[in-house]
């Protein structure tokens, strides 16, 4: 991100396109103060509150069977919904970025829809679609499948809210790359699958990883849509965010929700770390050619 031009001018005393140093440092100061109070302190607070009941209290919340069940459910839900959305994202990016067809703009708008539907409304839609009163719900029930207030509903809700992440990330990158490389590979005798696997996929890999980690972070942290379609039974249909809220309602153990929240905060930190790493990797590749 460092631009040689701005670095060059920084060494000169003060060029015509730079602010008074006082203004500069005042702006930096305000930005840093705002960011620390508004972003850093809330993060530190999660950990401080979690350990306010001591290490013993922290472990006993995490070792609670209901907490462990919520961790398992969150991993299961992310484990199903993320790969499906990745498969969709890659297929959609391939079709949209490499081919021209009528209705492409409309398809793109449809892919973005879940971003502009409130997660709560998304949950409500699923209840209407697969609930006990609906046609589909009754048919599924007759075949022994309960969707709403059970795990399949949570998976569907998560799939809905994390739907666009991978596709949105991949489409612009694949469009940028055009199709010359793939055409060359095909002329040289590669099969379609080989072309995709050895030419297209490696060139978008950082974007793909980036999409996956964002999709995963959202899938594990989703609350709104999931809370509507979950029966919220501890140990059965509580995901980690739902578990945090439930522990929060218990005023006798104020540190307990924070203990589970530290795990989600760590997820956020790992996501951010990976994201910075991928950006750095991407820049490095851009520079080397």
């Amino acid at each position, binding site marked *: 991100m460092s631009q040689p031009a701005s670095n060059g001018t920084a060494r000169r005393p003060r060029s015509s396109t730079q602010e008074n140093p006082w203004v500069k440092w005042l702006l930096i100061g305000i930005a840093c103060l705002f960011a620390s109070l508004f972003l850093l302190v809330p993060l530190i607070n999660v950990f401080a509150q979690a350990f306010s009941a001591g290490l013993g209290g922290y472990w006993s919340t995490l070792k609670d069977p209901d907490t462990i069940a919520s961790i398992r459910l969150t991993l299961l839900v992310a484990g199903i919904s993320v790969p499906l959305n990745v498969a969709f994202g890659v297929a959609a990016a391939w079709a949209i970025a490499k081919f021209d067809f009528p209705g492409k703009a409309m398809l793109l708008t449809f*892919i973005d829809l879940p971003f502009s539907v409130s997660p709560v*409304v998304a949950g409500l839609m699923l209840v209407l679609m697969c609930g006990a009163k609906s046609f589909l719900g009754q048919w599924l029930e007759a075949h022994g499948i309960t969707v709403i207030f059970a795990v399949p509903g949570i998976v569907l809700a998560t799939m809905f809210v994390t739907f666009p992440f991978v596709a949105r990330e991949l489409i612009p990158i694949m469009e940028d790359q055009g*199709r010359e490389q*793939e055409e060359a590979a095909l002329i040289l005798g590669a099969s379609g699958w080989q072309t995709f696997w050895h030419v297209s996929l490696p060139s978008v890999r950082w974007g793909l990883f980036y999409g996956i980690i964002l999709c995963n972070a959202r899938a594990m942290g989703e609350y709104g849509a999931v809370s*509507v379609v979950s029966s919220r039974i501890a140990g059965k249909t509580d995901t980690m965010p739902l578990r945090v809220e439930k522990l929060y309602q218990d005023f006798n153990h104020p540190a307990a929700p924070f203990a589970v929240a530290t795990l989600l905060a760590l997820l956020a930190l790992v996501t951010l770390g990976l994201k910075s790493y991928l950006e750095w990797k991407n820049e490095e590749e851009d520079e080397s050619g």
Partner: protein
Amino acid sequence: MRPNRSKGTKSNPLPGFGITLGFTVMYLSAVVLLPIAVLLIKSLSLSWSDLWTAATSRRALYAYGLSLGASFVAALLNAVFGSLLAWVLVRYRFPGRRFLDGLVDFPFALPTAVAGLTLANLFSANGWFGHYLTPLGIEGPTRFGVVLALTFVGLPFSVRTLQPVLENLDKGVEEAAAILGAGRLRTFVSVIAPTLFPTILTGFGLAFARGLGEYVSIIFISGNKPMETEIAPTLAVARLEAFDYSGAIGVALVLMAFSFALLFTLNWLQGWASKFQRP
């Protein structure tokens, strides 16, 4: 399109168009379009007067008002602080810049339940901030808390929208302004700010849209009392939990109408903003 000159799939030697497009359309229909269609069909089967009463009850109107008002104030705060952060991150080099840059994405990566939890705690009477603010009459579980939570979740949108545009801004224009005798402030107000304005407005719109849909952090922070701190999504859930389906659908339709109107405005805004990016 004339068949002999079509530049579509015919002259494109790449394989897999049919299968990938087929899968895309099928998956999209099953996961996204079908649920939306069910909501719309269901709402058609309800009586319009029921829906209208549900969607325009006093409690509902208050909830929309708070949702729109709080999102607006939060987006405004984000436009100010987000632009400041973007400016500082792009234009200045200082120790800790990379860290600050990473920190901006934090609200995006942090599950909103955790954001709500920690903000509620910070501004509670015993919290680190509430300890000082409560005696001043600034309390967390109020409309102030709602604005706070929405500002938190919307911040990355305004920073990340502005940042790339600011990076690509042509310095030559600023130099020209300086040569023509404009001071730094004058250059900023008459040259830089107008160029950035459409982008800042886009970021504002994105943060606003994010705020309208937000639900979780509000439950933690505001205690969501009807006619006081209840926002539209919490009202929809409250009605759903009371098995008042038409009431919930009414609110849901209004919320969807808001977000689609916003989506179209944003698309138009982004088109407008992109005209300013290349001189």
